[in-house]
C-alpha cells in the first residue's frame, strides 16, 4: 500500500470517498442536513475533483453536534470514546467502531514499521493513556506490529527510568519537551543517555517543536527521532509519519484525502504552498469527517520522497490557524481558559497566559486579576483563591498551571483582540 502507484491510490481514494459519502448521507445526522442544505447527493460526485463542493467541517460543527451528531453507526456498534481536550465548552467526542480501532492501529503499525521498528523492539509509551488518543491508539499499533509494549503513560520520571533500565527499552513515544526533561534527570542520576540505555528510536509528537530540538534529542540520546502527526478527529496519531529519510511526514492517503487551503478564503492551494491542512477521512466507520479544517499550518512537499513511497509528505506543522496552544501534549484554547476563569466569581475581567520553558519542561503561568470588591484584606484568602484557580484549571485542562494573582486593571488590554497568550518558549 505504501508504494501503490499514484493512479491506483487515487482510484482507491475515490472509491472510499464514494462509500464514505453514501454512509454519511444515509446515517450521519449532521451530514444528512449539510448535504440537503447544499443540494448535494453522493451520486453527483464523479471524481476526486468534486470534493471541494462539500463545505468544510469545523471544530465548531463538532462542538455544536456534540455528542452523537456525526455518528453513522448505532451505539451498540461503537466500542470506544476518545475526547479532545481543551476545547470551548464541551470537548469533542470521537467514537470508534471495532474496525476503526483496527484501522488506526494498522496505520500506527505501518508507520512504526516504516521507521524500522521490529517485533523484538521494546516500546515504552510515555504518552498519557485515557481520553487522549496518543496513548491508547499508539499502544494498539505497537502491539499489532508485535513489539513488547510498556504502557508507562505520562510522567513519573523515576519509574520511567527504572522501566527503561530494567526492560532495555529500545523505542519511546514521547513529547519533545519531556524527552529533554528526561535527559536532564538521567544526567542528574549519573546515567549516560548515550551509553547506559538501549534506546535507538523515539517518536516525537503531541506538541510543536523545531528541527533543532529534534537534532538535540537525537544527539543527547544517540538515537533517531521521528516526527509524527495526528489528531483525534482523524483517528488520533498515525495520520502522517516520517520515513527513514526524516524529511516531511508521509500522510496516509489511502485513509485520508489531503488538501491544503488558504485559511482566509478556503481556496485549495497547490503542493508546495503553505496553508491549512484539510482532511477527509475515507476509511472510517463510526464517524467519518469530511473536509475537516485542522487549524494546522503546513505545506505539501512537491517532490517524491527518496524512499519511493507514493503517499505525499506534509511539512512539520508550522503554527496554528487559531490561537490554540499545545502544552505538554494538551491542547489548550485561550477561550477555554477564559471560560474556566470567568466561572469563578472572585476573578476579575482580565488575565494573561504565559508559556515558559523551565528546565526544558513547558509551564503555563496564568496571571489573573482579582475582583476588587472581593478583596477582604486577608492574605490567607488570596492564597486560597490562588489554590482554587489552580485546582479548577487543573481539573478541566488536565495540566497543572502556575497561578499568580495581580491587581485589578493592571494587565495590558487592547481595544481589539487582547493578546492573552504570551509564548516565551523557544522551539
Amino acid at each position, binding site marked *: 500500500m505504501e508504494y501503490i502507484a499514484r493512479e491506483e491510490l487515487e482510484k482507491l481514494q475515490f472509491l472510499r470517498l464514494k462509500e464514505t459519502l453514501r454512509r454519511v448521507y444515509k446515517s450521519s445526522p449532521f451530514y444528512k442536513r449539510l448535504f440537503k442544505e447544499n443540494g448535494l447527493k453522493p451520486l453527483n460526485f464523479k471524481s476526486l475533483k468534486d470534493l471541494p463542493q462539500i463545505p468544510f467541517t469545523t471544530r465548531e460543527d463538532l462542538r455544536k453536534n456534540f455528542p452523537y451528531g456525526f455518528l453513522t453507526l448505532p451505539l451498540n456498534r461503537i466500542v470506544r470514546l476518545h475526547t479532545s481536550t481543551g476545547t470551548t465548552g464541551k470537548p469533542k467526542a470521537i467514537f470508534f467502531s471495532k474496525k476503526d480501532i483496527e484501522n488506526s492501529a494498522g496505520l500506527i503499525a505501518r508507520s512504526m514499521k516504516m521507521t524500522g521498528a521490529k517485533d523484538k523492539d521494546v516500546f515504552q509509551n510515555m504518552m498519557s493513556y485515557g481520553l487522549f488518543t496518543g496513548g491508547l491508539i499508539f499502544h494498539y499499533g505497537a502491539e499489532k506490529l508485535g513489539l513488547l509494549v510498556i504502557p508507562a503513560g505520562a510522567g513519573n520520571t523515576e519509574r520511567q527510568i527504572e522501566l527503561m533500565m530494567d526492560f532495555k527499552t529500545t523505542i519511546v513515544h514521547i513529547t519533545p519537551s519531556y524527552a529533554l526533561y528526561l535527559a536532564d534527570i538521567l544526567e542528574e542520576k549519573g546515567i549516560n543517555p548515550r551509553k547506559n540505555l538501549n534506546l535507538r528510536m523515539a517518536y516525537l509528537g503531541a506538541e510543536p517543536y523545531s528541527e533543532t530540538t529534534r537534532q538535540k534529542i537525537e544527539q543527547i540520546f544517540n538515537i533517531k527521532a521521528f516526527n509524527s502527526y495526528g489528531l483525534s478527529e482523524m483517528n488520533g496519531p498515525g495520520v502522517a509519519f516520517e520515513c527513514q529519510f526524516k524529511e516531511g511526514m508521509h500522510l496516509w492517503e489511502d485513509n485520508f484525502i489531503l488538501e491544503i487551503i488558504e485559511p482566509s478564503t478556503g481556496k485549495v492551494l497547490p503542493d508546495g504552498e503553505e496553508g491549512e491542512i484539510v482532511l477527509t477521512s475515507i476509511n472510517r466507520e463510526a464517524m467519518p469527517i469530511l473536509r475537516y479544517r485542522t487549524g494546522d499550518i503546513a505545506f505539501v512537499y512537491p517532490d517524491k520522497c527518496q524512499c519511493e513511497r507514493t503517499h505525499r509528505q506534509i511539512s512539520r506543522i508550522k503554527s496554528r490557524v487559531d490561537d490554540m496552544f499545545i502544552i505538554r501534549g494538551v491542547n489548550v484554547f485561550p477561550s477555554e481558559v477564559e471560560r474556566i476563569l470567568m466561572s469563578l466569581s472572585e476573578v476579575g475581567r482580565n488575565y494573561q497566559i504565559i508559556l515558559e520553558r523551565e528546565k526544558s519542561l513547558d509551564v503555563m503561568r496564568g496571571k489573573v486579576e482579582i475582583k*476588587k470588591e472581593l478583596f477582604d484584606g486577608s492574605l490567607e484568602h488570596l492564597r486560597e483563591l490562588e489554590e482554587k484557580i489552580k485546582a479548577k484549571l487543573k481539573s478541566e485542562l488536565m495540566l497543572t498551571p502556575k497561578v499568580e494573582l495581580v491587581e485589578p486593571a493592571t494587565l495590558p488590554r487592547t481595544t481589539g483582540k487582547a493578546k492573552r497568550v504570551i509564548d516565551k518558549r523557544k522551539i
Partner: protein
Amino acid sequence: MEEVQQISVFAENKPGKIEVITKILTKEKINIRAITIASSNKYGVIKLLVDNPEKAYRALKEDGLSVALNPTLALEMEDEPGGLHTIAQIVKKYQINIEDACGFVIKSKEKAVLVIQVKDIEKVKNILLSEKIHFLNKKELYNL
C-alpha cells in the same frame, strides 16, 4: 471600648508599590501610625493603621486599589519586660487564634500597643475585658 479600623491593600510584589499608597495618603494629609507587609511570593497585603481610616479607605479605593477595612482590637500593654507575655498568657488560656497582629511602642518605657485581628471579634473583646485588658479606642489610637 471599640474596635479600631485597619486598612489592607492588595499589592503585587513590585518596586514602587508602597510609593503609590503613600502618595495618596500624603495628598489626603493622612498620618500613618503603623505599617506591616505580608507577602506571598508574587503578591502581598500591606496593612496600615492611620489617623483617619475611613478617609484613607475612600481615597485609596478611588484610585483604583483593592482595599479593605478590617476591624481590629488595640490592646494596651506596659512597655516593660513581660508586657506582651501577660497578653500571650490570656490568649493561650482562652485558645484565641490571632490572624494578624502588629505591636509598637506608644510611649517609651511606659506604654505599648498590640493590634490584633481575630475571627470572632466580639467574643475576644469580652474575654479580654473580663481579664481587665485595656483597649485603646479609636480616638486614642488615631490621635497617637
